[in-house]
């Protein structure tokens, strides 16, 4: 119910136009990957999905950021049912991939931000390798690029009060890891897919 409140507030605030450019909102198992500029990113994306899909889609969030206070922890885990992953001190035993795979299971979809952190520069940053490992372990899952436009002006990093401007979320055509595609090529291709969505 709290989540419904967030969705309502998000829709009001972000004035988001949702464009399903390359695929349609079907309840399939997918990994949505997007550029990251604002804490509103996953609220807006989550609000963009239809109700039945929202229940099966879990955002991936950084453990170190979202456990700093009880409120943040509650919002990230109980309200949005996010998957908290380690991003600072990644080791073989404490890596981000396993919790993500476990959270996905057979039915759940994920929302991830391969840049790793909120980017304040106008260009989309380099993608970290999590997406590649996920694609390798679960090759049948559709990888959907998503471009989030203008949310960084609505709620920039470091601000708490939002400014209600218009924004746009574009969902692109699903992609898969190529047979013999290397990590660098794949991540570059994925990044390019998100960049292209802006003008699609």
């Amino acid at each position, binding site marked *: 119910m709290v989540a419904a409140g967030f969705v309502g507030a998000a829709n009001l605030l972000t004035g988001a136009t949702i464009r399903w450019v390359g695929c349609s909102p079907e309840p399939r198992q997918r990994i949505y990957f997007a550029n990251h500029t604002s804490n509103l990113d996953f609220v807006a994306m989550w609000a963009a999905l239809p109700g039945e899909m929202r229940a099966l889609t879990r955002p991936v969030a950084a453990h170190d950021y979202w456990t700093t206070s009880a409120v943040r922890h509650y919002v990230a885990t109980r309200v949005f049912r996010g998957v908290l992953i380690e991003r600072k001190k990644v080791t073989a035993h404490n890596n981000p991939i396993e919790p993500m795979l476990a959270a996905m299971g057979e039915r759940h979809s994920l929302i991830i931000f391969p840049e790793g952190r909120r980017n304040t520069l106008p260009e989309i940053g380099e993608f970290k390798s999590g997406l590649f490992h996920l694609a390798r372990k679960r090759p049948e899952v559709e990888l959907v690029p998503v471009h989030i436009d203008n949310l960084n002006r609505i709620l920039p990093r470091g601000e708490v*009060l939002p400014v209600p*401007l218009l*924004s746009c979320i574009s969902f692109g055509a699903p992609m898969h890891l190529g047979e013999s595609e290397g990590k660098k090529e794949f991540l570059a291709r994925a990044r390019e897919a998100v960049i292209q969505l802006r003008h699609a």
Partner: protein
Amino acid sequence: MTNRDPMLLAMMGVVLGLLLVASLVTLALGRRAVDEAARASVADLRSRVFSSWWMCLVFSLALLAGKVMTVVLFAIISFRALREFITLTPTRRGDHRALFWVFFILTPLQYVMVGMDWYGLYSVLIPVYGFLFVAIRSAAAGESEGFLERAAKIQWGLMICVYCLSYAPALLNLEIRGYDGRGATLLFWLVLVTEVSDVLQYAWGRCCGRHKIAPVISPNKTWEGFLGGVACTTLMGAALWKATPFAPWEAAGMALGVALMGFAGGLVMSAIKRDRGVKDYGSFIGGHGGMLDRMDSLCFAAPVFFHLTQMHFG
């Protein structure tokens, strides 16, 4: 319903009739459209007629419901128009807090003051206090790059989308001898003349437009459209003089002024759009209603009409 002015209801009836005719014409054209181009233009016409119905209904209901609802309606319209304008303007991180004030404090405050009829306050809130405060708040945030442009652009947005438009519902506050309590009728007359002016200029332009006025800024505006539209609007406004507190020739003069300002509003807002490289205000990010595209004429006409009326009956 607090307003039972027969002229108001009569005008609403006429508009309803016109919309019905427009819908029937669109239906007939739809049946006759054969090729792609014709069908596309009919679809465009249909969506315009549909949105005209919707806007007319909301506006009429708000007017009939009274001053508070009318003020609230215009506050919402201002908010949406401002949202489009600021989305289009390149502001920076340093403007964030100032923008928060603009959207959530200055805009509602302006309309609360209009609602309370504090003319001495609402006539200066934005041009003096808003103007100074936005600049101060942005400067205090410490970002100097493009500072003057950013402050100026935000002020422009506030002036056009909020200040100017708020003079429309402010008409309900005017005390006019022999016209007491009929402010809603005058407001309806203003909006009707403004919208009809746009439609007539467009229609004249379509049928006989040949000499462009400002081709770089607005390729659709022609001298034939402008002169034909303005002339017809003046006649129409004069014909409806009974709805206004003016004599017939005075009403003609007012309608002329409104039509001229409406044209000017469309021209100026187009200039801004060309500067920013967009076709419509709503389409910059994604694609939204385009509230500012619809309101540009009224934003310029409302304050001038308010002032002239006030001065005339001063």
